[in-house]
Protein backbone atom coordinates (compact mmCIF):
# COMPACT_ATOMS: atom_id res chain seq x y z
CA UNK A 1 0.00 0.00 0.00
CA UNK A 2 1.48 3.25 -1.07
CA UNK A 3 0.25 6.63 0.13
CA UNK A 4 1.30 9.97 -1.39
CA UNK A 5 3.14 10.83 1.82
CA UNK A 6 5.18 7.64 1.67
CA UNK A 7 5.86 8.18 -2.03
CA UNK A 8 7.09 11.68 -1.27
CA UNK A 9 9.31 10.47 1.59
CA UNK A 10 10.76 7.72 -0.58
CA UNK A 11 11.42 10.24 -3.34
CA UNK A 12 13.14 12.63 -0.93
CA UNK A 13 15.30 9.84 0.52
CA UNK A 14 16.22 8.65 -2.99
CA UNK A 15 17.13 12.25 -3.88
CA UNK A 16 19.48 12.49 -0.91
CA UNK A 17 21.20 9.24 -1.82
CA UNK A 18 21.63 10.58 -5.37
CA UNK A 19 23.18 13.84 -4.19
CA UNK A 20 25.59 11.83 -2.03
CA UNK A 21 26.58 9.75 -5.07
CA UNK A 22 27.24 12.88 -7.12
CA UNK A 23 29.45 14.20 -4.31
CA UNK A 24 31.49 10.98 -4.42
CA UNK A 25 31.69 11.09 -8.21
CA UNK A 26 32.91 14.69 -8.05
CA UNK A 27 35.59 13.51 -5.63
CA UNK A 28 36.81 10.93 -8.14
CA UNK A 29 35.08 7.74 -6.96
CA UNK A 30 34.37 5.62 -10.05
CA UNK A 31 32.39 3.05 -8.04
CA UNK A 32 29.87 5.77 -7.21
CA UNK A 33 29.36 6.21 -10.95
CA UNK A 34 28.61 2.48 -11.11
CA UNK A 35 26.06 2.85 -8.33
CA UNK A 36 24.39 5.73 -10.17
CA UNK A 37 24.26 3.50 -13.25
CA UNK A 38 22.67 0.72 -11.17
CA UNK A 39 19.92 3.11 -10.14
CA UNK A 40 19.17 4.76 -13.48
CA UNK A 41 21.06 2.94 -16.25
CA UNK A 42 18.00 0.98 -17.45
CA UNK A 43 15.96 4.12 -17.90
CA UNK A 44 18.74 6.15 -19.53
CA UNK A 45 19.63 3.30 -21.89
CA UNK A 46 15.93 2.71 -22.68
CA UNK A 47 15.26 6.37 -23.47
CA UNK A 48 18.34 6.56 -25.70
CA UNK A 49 17.41 3.31 -27.42
CA UNK A 50 14.00 4.74 -28.20
CA UNK A 51 15.43 8.07 -29.34
CA UNK A 52 18.14 6.57 -31.53
CA UNK A 53 16.50 3.36 -32.72
CA UNK A 54 19.56 1.11 -32.34
CA UNK A 55 20.76 -0.80 -29.26
CA UNK A 56 24.41 -0.52 -30.33
CA UNK A 57 24.22 3.26 -30.73
CA UNK A 58 22.22 3.59 -27.48
CA UNK A 59 24.96 1.65 -25.67
CA UNK A 60 27.67 3.94 -27.04
CA UNK A 61 25.74 7.12 -26.24
CA UNK A 62 24.84 5.87 -22.73
CA UNK A 63 28.54 5.38 -22.09
CA UNK A 64 29.23 8.92 -23.37
CA UNK A 65 26.48 10.29 -21.14
CA UNK A 66 27.93 8.69 -17.99
CA UNK A 67 31.36 9.97 -18.99
CA UNK A 68 29.83 13.48 -19.09
CA UNK A 69 28.37 12.88 -15.63
CA UNK A 70 31.87 11.98 -14.44
CA UNK A 71 33.31 15.18 -15.87
CA UNK A 72 30.48 17.49 -14.84
CA UNK A 73 29.59 16.12 -11.38
CA UNK A 74 31.36 19.03 -9.69
CA UNK A 75 29.03 21.48 -11.40
CA UNK A 76 25.78 19.72 -10.46
CA UNK A 77 23.49 22.17 -8.63
CA UNK A 78 20.79 20.45 -6.52
CA UNK A 79 18.63 23.59 -6.46
CA UNK A 80 18.35 23.38 -10.25
CA UNK A 81 16.70 19.97 -10.28
CA UNK A 82 16.93 16.35 -9.17
CA UNK A 83 19.96 14.24 -10.07
CA UNK A 84 17.90 11.95 -12.27
CA UNK A 85 16.50 14.92 -14.23
CA UNK A 86 20.04 16.23 -14.69
CA UNK A 87 21.20 12.79 -15.79
CA UNK A 88 18.33 12.45 -18.24
CA UNK A 89 19.09 15.87 -19.75
CA UNK A 90 22.76 14.87 -20.17
CA UNK A 91 21.71 11.62 -21.85
CA UNK A 92 19.24 13.32 -24.15
CA UNK A 93 21.78 16.00 -25.13
CA UNK A 94 24.31 13.27 -25.91
CA UNK A 95 21.71 11.56 -28.12
CA UNK A 96 20.86 14.81 -29.92
CA UNK A 97 24.57 15.52 -30.47
CA UNK A 98 25.11 12.02 -31.82
CA UNK A 99 22.20 12.37 -34.17
CA UNK A 100 23.38 15.75 -35.45
CA UNK A 101 27.00 14.81 -35.94
CA UNK A 102 26.99 11.13 -36.80
CA UNK A 103 23.44 10.01 -37.55
CA UNK A 104 22.43 9.73 -41.18
CA UNK A 105 19.84 12.31 -42.11
CA UNK A 106 17.34 9.75 -43.42
CA UNK A 107 17.54 7.68 -40.24
CA UNK A 108 17.27 10.80 -38.11
CA UNK A 109 14.11 11.94 -39.88
CA UNK A 110 12.59 8.46 -39.67
CA UNK A 111 13.12 8.30 -35.90
CA UNK A 112 11.59 11.76 -35.41
CA UNK A 113 8.59 10.91 -37.58
CA UNK A 114 8.03 7.70 -35.64
CA UNK A 115 8.33 9.64 -32.39
CA UNK A 116 5.26 11.70 -33.22
CA UNK A 117 3.17 8.52 -33.16
CA UNK A 118 4.96 6.75 -30.35
CA UNK A 119 2.65 7.58 -27.48
CA UNK A 120 -0.40 6.42 -29.42
CA UNK A 121 1.24 3.17 -30.42
CA UNK A 122 2.28 2.54 -26.87
CA UNK A 123 -1.28 2.76 -25.66
CA UNK A 124 -2.25 -0.41 -27.48
CA UNK A 125 1.04 -2.23 -27.32
CA UNK A 126 1.04 -4.25 -24.15
CA UNK A 127 4.03 -6.47 -24.81
CA UNK A 128 6.95 -4.08 -24.57
CA UNK A 129 6.76 -3.61 -20.83
CA UNK A 130 4.76 -5.82 -18.55
CA UNK A 131 5.12 -3.48 -15.59
CA UNK A 132 1.84 -2.22 -14.21
CA UNK A 133 3.33 1.19 -13.52
CA UNK A 134 4.48 1.63 -17.11
CA UNK A 135 0.99 0.66 -18.27
CA UNK A 136 -0.58 3.22 -15.96
CA UNK A 137 1.75 5.94 -17.20
CA UNK A 138 1.01 5.10 -20.80
CA UNK A 139 -2.71 5.07 -20.09
CA UNK A 140 -2.39 8.51 -18.45
CA UNK A 141 -0.54 9.85 -21.51
CA UNK A 142 -3.21 8.31 -23.70
CA UNK A 143 -5.89 10.46 -22.08
CA UNK A 144 -4.17 13.72 -23.11
CA UNK A 145 -5.52 15.63 -26.13
CA UNK A 146 -3.77 14.58 -29.33
CA UNK A 147 -2.00 17.91 -29.87
CA UNK A 148 -0.46 17.72 -26.39
CA UNK A 149 0.60 14.09 -26.94
CA UNK A 150 2.19 15.09 -30.21
CA UNK A 151 4.35 17.92 -28.80
CA UNK A 152 5.41 15.78 -25.83
CA UNK A 153 6.42 12.94 -28.14
CA UNK A 154 8.32 15.19 -30.54
CA UNK A 155 10.11 16.86 -27.64
CA UNK A 156 10.81 13.79 -25.56
CA UNK A 157 11.45 11.00 -28.05
CA UNK A 158 12.14 13.12 -31.12
CA UNK A 159 14.65 15.29 -29.22
CA UNK A 160 13.33 18.46 -30.87
CA UNK A 161 13.48 21.85 -29.19
CA UNK A 162 10.25 23.79 -28.80
CA UNK A 163 11.30 26.09 -31.67
CA UNK A 164 11.99 23.09 -33.89
CA UNK A 165 8.57 21.63 -33.05
CA UNK A 166 6.94 24.96 -33.90
CA UNK A 167 8.70 24.99 -37.26
CA UNK A 168 8.01 21.35 -38.07
CA UNK A 169 4.32 21.45 -37.17
CA UNK A 170 3.65 25.01 -38.39
CA UNK A 171 2.40 25.99 -34.93
CA UNK A 172 3.26 29.28 -33.17
CA UNK A 173 6.05 28.86 -30.61
CA UNK A 174 3.84 30.17 -27.78
CA UNK A 175 1.23 27.52 -28.57
CA UNK A 176 3.86 24.77 -28.55
CA UNK A 177 5.10 25.96 -25.16
CA UNK A 178 1.58 26.05 -23.72
CA UNK A 179 0.88 22.55 -25.02
CA UNK A 180 4.05 21.17 -23.44
CA UNK A 181 3.14 22.84 -20.15
CA UNK A 182 -0.52 21.76 -20.21
CA UNK A 183 0.39 18.21 -21.21
CA UNK A 184 2.95 17.86 -18.44
CA UNK A 185 0.67 19.48 -15.84
CA UNK A 186 -2.20 17.14 -16.69
CA UNK A 187 0.10 14.14 -16.72
CA UNK A 188 1.42 15.11 -13.30
CA UNK A 189 -2.12 15.47 -11.92
CA UNK A 190 -3.19 12.13 -13.35
CA UNK A 191 -0.17 10.33 -11.98
CA UNK A 192 -0.71 11.96 -8.56
CA UNK A 193 -4.32 10.72 -8.70
CA UNK A 194 -3.05 7.23 -9.51
CA UNK A 195 -0.71 7.32 -6.51
CA UNK A 196 -3.57 8.28 -4.21
CA UNK A 197 -5.72 5.40 -5.43
CA UNK A 198 -2.87 2.86 -5.26
Amino acid at each position, binding site marked *: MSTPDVVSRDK*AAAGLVDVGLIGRIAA*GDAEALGELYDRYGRVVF*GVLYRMLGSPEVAEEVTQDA*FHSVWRQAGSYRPERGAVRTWLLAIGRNAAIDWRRTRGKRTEREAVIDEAAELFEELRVEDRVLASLR*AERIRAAVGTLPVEQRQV*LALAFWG*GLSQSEIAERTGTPLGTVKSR*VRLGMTKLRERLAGEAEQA
Partner: protein
Amino acid sequence: MTDHPRDDLAAYALGTLDTAEQRMVGAHLDSCATCREELDALEEAAWALAETAAAPAPARLRERIVSRERAPRGRLGALFGGLRAPVPLAIPLALALALIVALVGLGSARRDADTYTRAVAAVVGARLVALSDTGEAPGARGTLVVPVDPGASAPYLILELPSAPAGHAWEAWVVRGDRAIPAGLVEDRAGVLTVALTEAPAAGDQVAVTLERSGGASQPTTRPVLAGRV
Protein backbone atom coordinates in the same frame (compact mmCIF):
# COMPACT_ATOMS: atom_id res chain seq x y z
CA MET B 1 13.04 38.65 -9.31
CA THR B 2 12.17 38.05 -12.98
CA ASP B 3 8.78 36.67 -14.06
CA HIS B 4 8.28 32.97 -13.37
CA PRO B 5 9.22 30.97 -16.50
CA ARG B 6 6.03 28.91 -16.24
CA ASP B 7 5.91 27.73 -19.84
CA ASP B 8 9.57 26.74 -19.92
CA LEU B 9 9.55 24.89 -16.61
CA ALA B 10 7.83 21.81 -18.09
CA ALA B 11 10.28 21.71 -20.99
CA TYR B 12 13.13 22.12 -18.49
CA ALA B 13 11.87 19.09 -16.58
CA LEU B 14 11.75 17.14 -19.85
CA GLY B 15 15.31 18.23 -20.61
CA THR B 16 14.23 19.69 -23.95
CA LEU B 17 15.32 23.32 -23.62
CA ASP B 18 18.37 24.51 -25.50
CA THR B 19 21.44 25.41 -23.46
CA ALA B 20 20.78 29.16 -23.24
CA GLU B 21 17.14 28.66 -22.15
CA GLN B 22 18.22 25.95 -19.71
CA ARG B 23 20.73 28.32 -18.13
CA MET B 24 18.12 31.07 -17.81
CA VAL B 25 15.58 28.81 -16.10
CA GLY B 26 18.36 27.36 -13.93
CA ALA B 27 19.38 30.83 -12.75
CA HIS B 28 15.77 31.61 -11.89
CA LEU B 29 15.47 28.36 -9.90
CA ASP B 30 18.43 29.40 -7.74
CA SER B 31 16.31 32.06 -6.11
CA CYS B 32 12.68 30.96 -6.59
CA ALA B 33 11.25 28.42 -4.15
CA THR B 34 7.85 28.52 -5.89
CA CYS B 35 9.28 27.37 -9.22
CA ARG B 36 11.52 24.82 -7.50
CA GLU B 37 8.43 23.28 -5.93
CA GLU B 38 6.63 23.29 -9.27
CA LEU B 39 9.67 21.69 -10.87
CA ASP B 40 9.69 18.92 -8.26
CA ALA B 41 6.22 17.88 -9.39
CA LEU B 42 6.97 18.21 -13.12
CA GLU B 43 10.15 16.15 -12.71
CA GLU B 44 8.00 13.30 -11.42
CA ALA B 45 5.94 13.37 -14.61
CA ALA B 46 9.03 13.64 -16.84
CA TRP B 47 10.69 10.72 -15.11
CA ALA B 48 7.47 8.72 -15.42
CA LEU B 49 7.61 9.21 -19.21
CA ALA B 50 11.23 8.09 -19.23
CA GLU B 51 10.40 5.00 -17.20
CA THR B 52 8.04 3.75 -19.91
CA ALA B 53 11.12 3.22 -22.08
CA ALA B 54 13.25 1.41 -19.45
CA ALA B 55 15.05 -1.53 -21.02
CA PRO B 56 17.82 -3.88 -19.92
CA ALA B 57 21.18 -2.73 -21.26
CA PRO B 58 23.92 -5.22 -22.20
CA ALA B 59 25.62 -6.51 -19.04
CA ARG B 60 29.03 -5.30 -20.24
CA LEU B 61 27.93 -1.66 -20.31
CA ARG B 62 28.25 -1.06 -16.56
CA GLU B 63 31.82 -2.34 -16.49
CA ARG B 64 32.72 -0.26 -19.54
CA ILE B 65 31.36 2.89 -17.88
CA VAL B 66 33.18 2.32 -14.58
CA SER B 67 36.48 1.05 -15.98
CA ARG B 68 36.73 4.01 -18.40
CA GLU B 69 36.96 6.32 -15.38
CA ARG B 70 39.17 4.06 -13.30
CA ALA B 71 41.79 3.87 -16.04
CA PRO B 72 42.73 7.51 -16.61
CA ARG B 73 43.22 8.39 -12.95
CA GLY B 74 46.69 9.70 -13.59
CA ARG B 75 45.54 12.05 -16.31
CA LEU B 76 42.54 13.15 -14.31
CA GLY B 77 44.73 13.75 -11.31
CA ALA B 78 46.95 16.00 -13.38
CA LEU B 79 43.94 17.79 -14.81
CA PHE B 80 42.50 18.57 -11.41
CA GLY B 81 45.84 19.29 -9.83
CA GLY B 82 46.96 15.98 -8.36
CA LEU B 83 43.95 13.98 -7.15
CA ARG B 84 45.46 10.87 -5.65
CA ALA B 85 44.33 7.60 -7.17
CA PRO B 86 41.38 6.58 -5.04
CA VAL B 87 40.32 3.00 -4.50
CA PRO B 88 36.61 2.24 -4.52
CA LEU B 89 34.78 3.81 -1.62
CA ALA B 90 32.17 1.33 -0.48
CA ILE B 91 29.32 2.69 1.59
CA PRO B 92 28.85 0.32 4.51
CA LEU B 93 25.43 -1.18 3.87
CA ALA B 94 24.25 -0.79 7.44
CA LEU B 95 25.21 2.88 7.37
CA ALA B 96 23.40 3.49 4.09
CA LEU B 97 20.27 1.77 5.42
CA ALA B 98 20.48 3.74 8.66
CA LEU B 99 20.70 6.95 6.67
CA ILE B 100 17.62 6.13 4.61
CA VAL B 101 15.61 5.07 7.66
CA ALA B 102 16.62 8.20 9.52
CA LEU B 103 15.73 10.43 6.58
CA VAL B 104 12.34 8.81 6.07
CA GLY B 105 11.71 9.19 9.78
CA LEU B 106 12.28 12.91 9.58
CA GLY B 107 9.09 13.26 7.54
CA SER B 108 8.03 16.60 6.22
CA ALA B 109 10.59 18.54 8.26
CA ARG B 110 13.27 17.19 5.98
CA ARG B 111 11.54 18.59 2.90
CA ASP B 112 12.10 22.04 4.33
CA ALA B 113 15.82 21.48 4.81
CA ASP B 114 17.82 23.62 2.40
CA THR B 115 19.97 22.34 -0.41
CA TYR B 116 23.26 22.72 1.41
CA THR B 117 21.97 20.89 4.48
CA ARG B 118 20.57 18.14 2.29
CA ALA B 119 23.88 17.74 0.48
CA VAL B 120 25.77 17.43 3.77
CA ALA B 121 23.15 15.06 5.22
CA ALA B 122 23.55 12.78 2.21
CA VAL B 123 27.23 12.07 2.87
CA VAL B 124 27.95 8.58 4.15
CA GLY B 125 31.14 6.72 4.97
CA ALA B 126 33.02 9.91 5.79
CA ARG B 127 33.93 12.25 8.65
CA LEU B 128 32.57 15.79 8.43
CA VAL B 129 34.31 18.94 9.66
CA ALA B 130 32.19 22.10 9.62
CA LEU B 131 34.03 25.23 8.48
CA SER B 132 33.29 28.47 10.33
CA ASP B 133 31.94 31.50 8.53
CA THR B 134 34.38 34.34 9.27
CA GLY B 135 31.85 37.00 8.28
CA GLU B 136 33.86 38.05 5.19
CA ALA B 137 31.23 36.64 2.83
CA PRO B 138 27.82 36.54 4.50
CA GLY B 139 25.91 33.34 3.80
CA ALA B 140 29.02 31.30 2.92
CA ARG B 141 28.95 27.77 4.36
CA GLY B 142 31.35 24.88 4.10
CA THR B 143 31.94 21.33 5.27
CA LEU B 144 35.07 19.25 4.81
CA VAL B 145 34.29 15.62 3.89
CA VAL B 146 37.05 13.13 4.77
CA PRO B 147 36.35 9.52 3.75
CA VAL B 148 36.55 7.15 6.74
CA ASP B 149 38.91 4.94 4.77
CA PRO B 150 41.98 7.14 4.19
CA GLY B 151 42.86 5.14 1.07
CA ALA B 152 39.47 5.80 -0.48
CA SER B 153 38.45 8.80 -2.57
CA ALA B 154 40.05 12.23 -2.10
CA PRO B 155 38.67 14.51 0.61
CA TYR B 156 36.38 17.22 -0.71
CA LEU B 157 34.49 20.32 0.36
CA ILE B 158 30.76 20.89 0.14
CA LEU B 159 30.44 24.65 -0.17
CA GLU B 160 27.74 27.24 -0.46
CA LEU B 161 29.28 30.39 -1.86
CA PRO B 162 28.07 33.64 -3.40
CA SER B 163 29.23 34.45 -6.94
CA ALA B 164 32.84 35.65 -6.96
CA PRO B 165 33.27 39.16 -8.44
CA ALA B 166 34.29 39.29 -12.13
CA GLY B 167 37.88 38.16 -12.66
CA HIS B 168 37.98 36.36 -9.31
CA ALA B 169 37.57 32.81 -8.04
CA TRP B 170 37.24 31.03 -4.69
CA GLU B 171 40.34 29.12 -3.67
CA ALA B 172 40.63 26.34 -1.07
CA TRP B 173 43.77 26.03 1.08
CA VAL B 174 45.27 23.50 3.42
CA VAL B 175 47.20 25.44 6.07
CA ARG B 176 49.98 23.38 7.64
CA GLY B 177 51.94 25.20 10.32
CA ASP B 178 52.71 28.57 8.73
CA ARG B 179 52.49 27.28 5.16
CA ALA B 180 49.35 27.58 2.99
CA ILE B 181 49.08 24.96 0.25
CA PRO B 182 46.66 25.63 -2.67
CA ALA B 183 44.07 22.82 -2.59
CA GLY B 184 41.37 23.60 -5.16
CA LEU B 185 39.86 26.38 -7.24
CA VAL B 186 36.21 27.28 -7.82
CA GLU B 187 35.89 29.31 -11.02
CA ASP B 188 32.58 30.57 -12.42
CA ARG B 189 30.49 28.61 -9.96
CA ALA B 190 28.34 29.71 -7.06
CA GLY B 191 25.60 28.29 -4.85
CA VAL B 192 25.94 24.79 -3.44
CA LEU B 193 28.86 22.92 -5.02
CA THR B 194 31.59 20.42 -4.29
CA VAL B 195 35.32 20.73 -4.87
CA ALA B 196 37.81 17.87 -4.56
CA LEU B 197 40.89 18.81 -2.53
CA THR B 198 44.19 18.35 -4.31
CA GLU B 199 46.02 18.33 -0.98
CA ALA B 200 44.81 15.95 1.73
CA PRO B 201 44.54 17.76 5.07
CA ALA B 202 46.17 15.95 8.01
CA ALA B 203 45.12 16.09 11.66
CA GLY B 204 45.89 19.54 13.05
CA ASP B 205 45.85 21.22 9.61
CA GLN B 206 43.43 24.02 8.86
CA VAL B 207 41.27 24.21 5.77
CA ALA B 208 40.30 27.66 4.50
CA VAL B 209 38.61 29.30 1.52
CA THR B 210 39.63 32.75 0.23
CA LEU B 211 38.73 35.03 -2.67
CA GLU B 212 41.57 35.22 -5.20
CA ARG B 213 42.16 36.41 -8.73
CA SER B 214 40.84 34.11 -11.45
CA GLY B 215 43.34 31.30 -12.05
CA GLY B 216 44.28 31.11 -8.38
CA ALA B 217 47.16 32.41 -6.29
CA SER B 218 50.25 30.69 -4.90
CA GLN B 219 49.60 32.22 -1.47
CA PRO B 220 46.36 33.61 0.01
CA THR B 221 45.98 37.35 -0.57
CA THR B 222 42.69 37.96 1.28
CA ARG B 223 41.19 36.98 4.62
CA PRO B 224 39.45 33.57 4.64
CA VAL B 225 35.67 33.51 4.22
CA LEU B 226 35.54 30.02 5.73
CA ALA B 227 37.99 28.19 7.96
CA GLY B 228 38.13 25.06 10.12
CA ARG B 229 40.64 22.81 11.84
CA VAL B 230 40.85 19.10 11.03
